[in-house]
């Protein structure tokens, strides 16, 4: 299998899915009406509700879903089960579920006066959904924080050549914020300067490798080479033996990331979080575009970078070592959330876009279109890891992507430097936002009851501490899958809302209902499997061996899984009741929308 073929396959499939399926739903089920007034035109306030040109909106929406999720998911899934299941799931998933998620969430919001889905949930399902959402939000954030900090720390620790680039990224982010908001510079000039310097630092990374390697060694020397924490990780059973170690250098990088995220959380958003995301975007975009084009062209120009080197299919239930299970169903579907489904984004993100939809005819290209474009990102990650095939999933990915980029004449060493940096950046930028949101959530959630949480530093510190705890637990794979499950459950919830709404307004609800059921069942199943894995294969051995921190962390994760299952059951119950209720008669609609003037 080579990359060009995969790219062609991907593009053809999504093209067909968009034109044949998605468009049909838009036309006959949703019946989008270009003459109907949208909330943007009705409530126009120039800030939130603002009719925006569809191309601008497409760019904006695409960027907000351009995600670390599909990338990390794809590379892990390919490593666990081979590239074939991952590819099939990516394609099928986005064609039947991925696009439906964001698109429907936008439709729901547009047709409900621009209300967010959570507001609609309150009205359509039950007030109890609110409490469930609370739970979801915090666990989701906690899990993803742990997962992303963990994976970044391990990459940073093992790749000293990325360090200079990352340091400059932060510096340039701060500079950009200053330039734009205080010095009122033009965006073009500021971009060229900050992004240019960052790219330069990334590309000359290999030259600085020696220096930073020395730093790692010095740190590890503090404990004389002994690990800070050892833990039991069955996923490493095959190549490292299940006993894994966390060295001081890893902890150092985890802490460094957390310091960065802490700053991003408490500083005003325009100072650091926003500009760093912006600079990071350019780095990632460059790497991805060069990579995707290189993947397509590679077959002709430089065939050795274009051949898949990992097995197509590793089996229905690859063993992880002592009794660890990883069945294809349900675990594949939460490892790689069909490349682009994000429950979080459907619930909390789409409303921003929905309030800017100028014309109902834009809903499909913006919502579904972005998802399909997003699919390409997941596909690229899959190609890269299948071609790279060296060492850990991330290393394989970077190697593969570096290979694609090198098609353009950049030496492989520098190209993979760029690829590694792109990976770290795409994860880093979202992680700092996550900590910010975690702080806000803690404050809002507990601030009334425990006043000390109202202090932003306390809330940020607690968030960081919990994330570090999860990192020190090891067993990153379970963390990732739990996160995937939480994400998918949220997606199921949003699809549930859409289904109920469709039923309540008498529209055909199958296109949303079926994916919802699939996701719900799969996800709950996956949480059960993960809980099983965690309890028997991680928690118990850690406790037996007296390893405190990992035991605490894995215990916490088991608890979270149990709560997730309970929350899911509650939602399922309430949702089912609401569905039955509306199936009979329509729900009170929020007034007819006037025709456009």
């Amino acid at each position, binding site marked *: 299998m080579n990359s060009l073929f995969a790219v062609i396959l991907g593009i053809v499939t999504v093209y067909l899915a968009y034109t044949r399926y998605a468009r049909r739903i838009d036309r006959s089920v949703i019946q989008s009406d270009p003459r109907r007034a949208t909330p943007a035109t009705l409530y126009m306030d120039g800030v939130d509700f603002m009719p925006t040109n569809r191309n601008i909106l497409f760019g904006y929406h695409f960027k907000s879903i351009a995600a670390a999720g599909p990338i990390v998911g794809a590379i892990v899934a390919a490593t666990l089960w081979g590239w074939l299941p991952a590819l099939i799931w990516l394609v099928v998933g986005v064609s039947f579920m991925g696009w439906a998620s964001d698109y429907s969430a936008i439709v729901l919001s547009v047709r409900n006066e621009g209300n967010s889905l959570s507001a609609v949930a309150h009205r359509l399902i039950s007030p109890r959904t609110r409490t469930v959402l609370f739970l979801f939000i915090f666990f989701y954030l906690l899990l993803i924080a742990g997962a992303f900090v963990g994976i970044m720390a391990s990459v940073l620790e093992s790749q000293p050549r990325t360090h200079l680039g990352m340091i400059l990224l932060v510096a340039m982010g701060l500079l950009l914020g200053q330039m*734009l*908001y205080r010095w*009122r510079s*033009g*965006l073009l000039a500021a971009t060229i300067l900050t992004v240019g310097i960052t790219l330069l630092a990334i590309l000359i990374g290999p030259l600085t490798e020696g220096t930073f390697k020395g730093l790692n060694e010095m740190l590890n020397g503090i404990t004389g080479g002994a690990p800070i924490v050892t833990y039991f990780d069955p996923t490493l059973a095959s190549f490292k033996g299940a006993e894994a170690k966390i060295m001081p250098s890893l902890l150092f990088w985890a802490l460094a990331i957390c310091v960065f995220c802490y700053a991003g959380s408490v500083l005003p958003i325009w100072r650091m979080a926003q500009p760093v995301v912006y600079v990071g975007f350019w780095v990632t975009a460059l790497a991805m575009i060069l990579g995707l084009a290189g993947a397509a062209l590679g077959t002709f120009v430089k065939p050795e970078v274009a051949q898949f080197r990992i097995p197509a299919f590793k089996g229905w239930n690859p063993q992880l070592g002592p009794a660890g299970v990883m069945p294809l169903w349900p675990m594949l579907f939460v490892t790689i959330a069909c490349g682009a489904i994000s429950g979080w984004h459907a619930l909390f993100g789409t409303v921003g876009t929905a309030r800017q939809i100028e014309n109902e005819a834009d809903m499909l290209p913006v919502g579904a279109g972005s998802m399909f474009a997003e699919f390409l990102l997941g596909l690229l990650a899959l190609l890269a890891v299948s071609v790279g095939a060296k060492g850990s999933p991330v290393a394989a990915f970077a190697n593969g992507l570096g290979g694609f980029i090198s098609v353009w004449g950049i030496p492989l060493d520098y190209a993979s430097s760029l690829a590694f940096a792109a990976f770290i950046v795409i994860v880093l930028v979202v992680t700092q936002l996550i900590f910010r949101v975690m702080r806000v959530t803690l404050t809002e959630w507990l601030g009334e009851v425990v006043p000390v949480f109202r202090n932003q530093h306390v809330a940020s510190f607690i968030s960081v501490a919990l994330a570090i705890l999860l990192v020190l637990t090891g067993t990153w794979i379970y963390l990732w899958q739990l996160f995937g499950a939480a994400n998918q459950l949220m997606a199921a919830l949003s699809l549930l809302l859409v289904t109920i709404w469709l039923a309540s307004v008498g529209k055909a609800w199958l296109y949303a209902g079926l994916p919802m059921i699939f996701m719900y069942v799969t996800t709950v199943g996956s949480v059960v499997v993960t809980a099983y894995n965690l309890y028997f294969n991680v928690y118990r051995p850690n406790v037996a061996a007296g390893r405190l921190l990992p035991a605490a962390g894995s215990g916490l994760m088991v608890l979270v899984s149990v709560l997730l299952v309970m929350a899911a059951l509650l939602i399922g119950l309430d949702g089912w009741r609401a569905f039955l209720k509306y199936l009979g008669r329509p729900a009170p609609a929020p007034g007819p929308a006037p025709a456009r003037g």
Partner: protein
Amino acid sequence: MSLKQVFESQPGRRYIMFGGKGGLGKTTLSATSAFWLASQGKRVLLFSVDPQASLSDIFQRDIFGKGPVPIMQNLWAQEVDADRRIREYQDEIRKKILDMYGFDRVPEEIDSYIAAASAEPAMEESAIFDAVVDIIVQGEYDYYIYDLVPLGHALYYLSMAKVYDEWINKITKLREEMRQYDQMAATMRRQETVEEDKILEELRYIKSRINASSQILTDRGRTAFFFVLVPEEMIILDTRKAAELFSRFNVPISGYVVNRVLPLELRQDNVPQYLRNRIVMQQKYLEKIQGTLGDQVLAYVPEMERDITGLPMIEKLAERLFK
């Protein structure tokens, strides 16, 4: 120093105020000074915002709410009808809204806000404040004589000016920050620079007016404030307290006028014991006043045989006061 000397030696002091407790003769003194100045050839505006319409009484004509009314050569009198002014102001605002947006009617919630404003006590105060600002910053007349409502009004006015000024500053700053964000958004969108913020202009206009008027009132060179009192114990005490307050606000007291002095000649006539006692007590108070205020007292105005109403009586008093 006499009242006449005070006026003549400081011709730059064009803003005159007579203050003091109610019923002590401020209006009489204001009218008399206005009369005298007018007869010296100066253009004088005598105005009041007192709803009791005492100027109308003293000039024996209805000038309430009629703008500056010519009383005689060089003398105009104006009684501000605060209520009417508020109503007219509300209508002005309504009209402005209709003009700006081309509506047929003012939107209901906006209209009820405008209507409700008149019911607020703060509205009347601020409208009066604004009326005084209007008159003061005009500049047409040579002299402006403000017949103040009882005692603290000048102070209240000045302290309000300070508070209003601070508020306007805060709000202006806020507005300027907003404008910066507008400019930033415009830059991103590659638009022309944003048009002038009309609200900012308004705020600056309001601020300059408030400042202008409070500057005038605290400027020793341009404002003279005369305190009116009568020789009675309570009044003397109140006056002293007021004087302290005034100095704290930098309102320059240019002098005192003691009114309603019973003529000493009365002692000689065959008058009832009661009256004799009163004169003796008055003497005591006069000495007290002399002792504490000394030559800050510019005039001792005698109790006249009739109420001072009508131009002839005013003329008579003016002759006595400004000889």
